[in-house]
């Protein structure tokens, strides 16, 4: 009984280590193929359009309401200490350092990441990936590498948009609705936000972009050959990406602070 339980734990541990190794090799092989001709610029632009441009609306919407809620919550908290003038810095620092990278990446996971997994998974099930192989076209180079690059470029750009819109959302509620002084809103941002806050946010967004595209592509590429398998792969991709974003965010924050 005990031996069986230990064996089960061992098998699970081995499976996890194996899976992690396979994921790492998957990413390394994809980046290695990126360096070899033919260079697929058109594919990268196409994926940037899908991951970046097509996620803009949902990111703007999320950013606006997040900023507005932050404005509202921040105002009522700061008013207790008579520090409403610091609302701008509270909103901007929360957005740039934490909420922008995390929430924008989670939105990209939900919108583009799940679609990436489903698309690649369907290509696997319908043998389109095998068809690429038979035509001597490497699927990692043609399908995966452009998506990884697009994630690395697209997510930081979306995070930048998220930050700006979020700060304006806080402005709308704090200044226009609740009467915080406009000058103190902007000047508190100017005095509180430092360059290291900005590059910390950029660093986070780049790593989150990689996590989303990497995990979602991997799960789609190795999906089981059934509709149920595809559903499971999509769910796993979204859950694993989201959890990894949050866990990695903690470690990165502890290093960057």
């Amino acid at each position, binding site marked *: 009984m005990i031996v069986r339980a230990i064996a089960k734990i061992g098998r699970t541990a081995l499976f996890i280590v194996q899976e992690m190794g396979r994921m790492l090799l998957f990413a390394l092989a994809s980046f290695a193929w990126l360096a070899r001709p033919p260079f697929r610029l058109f594919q990268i632009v196409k994926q940037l359009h899908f991951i970046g441009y097509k996620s803009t609306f949902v990111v703007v919407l999320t950013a606006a309401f997040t900023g507005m809620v932050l404005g509202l919550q921040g105002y009522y908290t700061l008013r207790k200490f008579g520090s409403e003038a610091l609302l701008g810095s509270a909103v901007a620092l929360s957005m740039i350092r934490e909420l922008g990278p995390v929430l924008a990446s989670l939105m990209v996971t939900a919108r583009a990441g799940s679609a990436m997994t489903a698309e690649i998974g369907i290509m696997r099930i319908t*043998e389109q990936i095998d068809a690429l192989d038979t035509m001597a076209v490497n699927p990692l180079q043609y399908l995966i590498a452009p998506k990884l690059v697009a994630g690395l470029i697209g997510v930081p750009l979306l995070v930048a948009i998220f930050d700006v819109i979020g700060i304006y959302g806080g402005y709308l509620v704090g200044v226009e609705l609740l009467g915080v002084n406009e000058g103190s809103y902007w000047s508190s941002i100017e005095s509180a936000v430092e360059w290291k806050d900005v590059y910390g946010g950029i660093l986070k967004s780049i790593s989150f972009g990689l996590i989303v595209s990497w995990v979602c592509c991997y799960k789609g590429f190795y999906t089981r050959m059934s509709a149920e398998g595809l559903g499971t792969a999509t769910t796993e991709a979204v859950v694993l990406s989201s959890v990894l974003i949050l866990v990695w965010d903690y470690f990165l924050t502890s290093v960057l602070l």
Partner: protein
Amino acid sequence: MIKLIGVEKTLGGQPVLRGVDLEIPKGKLTTIIGRSGEGKSVLLKHMIGLLQPDRGEVWVDGVDISRLRGKALNEVRKRFAMLFQGAALFDSLTVFENVAFPLREKLRLKDPEVTRRVNEKLEQVGLAGMGHKYPAELSGGMKKRAGLARALVMEPEIILFDEPTTGLDPLMAKQIHDLIIGMQRTFGFTAVMVSHEIPEIFGISDWVAMLKEGRIAAMAPAAEFQRIEDPAVREFISVGGMMPLPVNR
């Protein structure tokens, strides 16, 4: 010539191929028959290196492709084309773009030449004027034709057909068979087809092989294959339609 020696493959803990020895004659159409789940498609995928055997060798004109990876394997694959069961057309591309795909990827031809070659192939498979459609807008038969056009466009030496008529009505299945045999006779490529279409395959194949319990149970020229006395072969081809079964009323 393709030659498989002692090929074994286990998938998901289940032995599928248990020592396949098979020689595919050059320039002929060889059909592999066998019950569903016997591993015919798995066998086909070994011939093009989509799957590697657990044991055994797969030789293509003197090269053991079971040992090849990456670029070396791709070099061998350039001599192949494959028509998949569901045609495996890229659903984000139009029919024209699907057929043009290997030309653009591998030959880097100029657009007018690509257009000329693609239109020629689409016309040969009876899809002239359909190039602008997406795979989702095509019927099953049209998808197979488009897949066939994509397989033919690079003028490969070897084409593998994985159940090319599955899911088609008898008339459409006959049309696809006629197309395959017509193209094979015209261009002289080596063709390997996995099919369940008995007795039709005896009319179009040069050679027939039967896969049973993970091994080749019989292989012979099509005319001789029908006279094989092995009970398993007789049962399969008679149930498949070679001999009419009594009708219970």
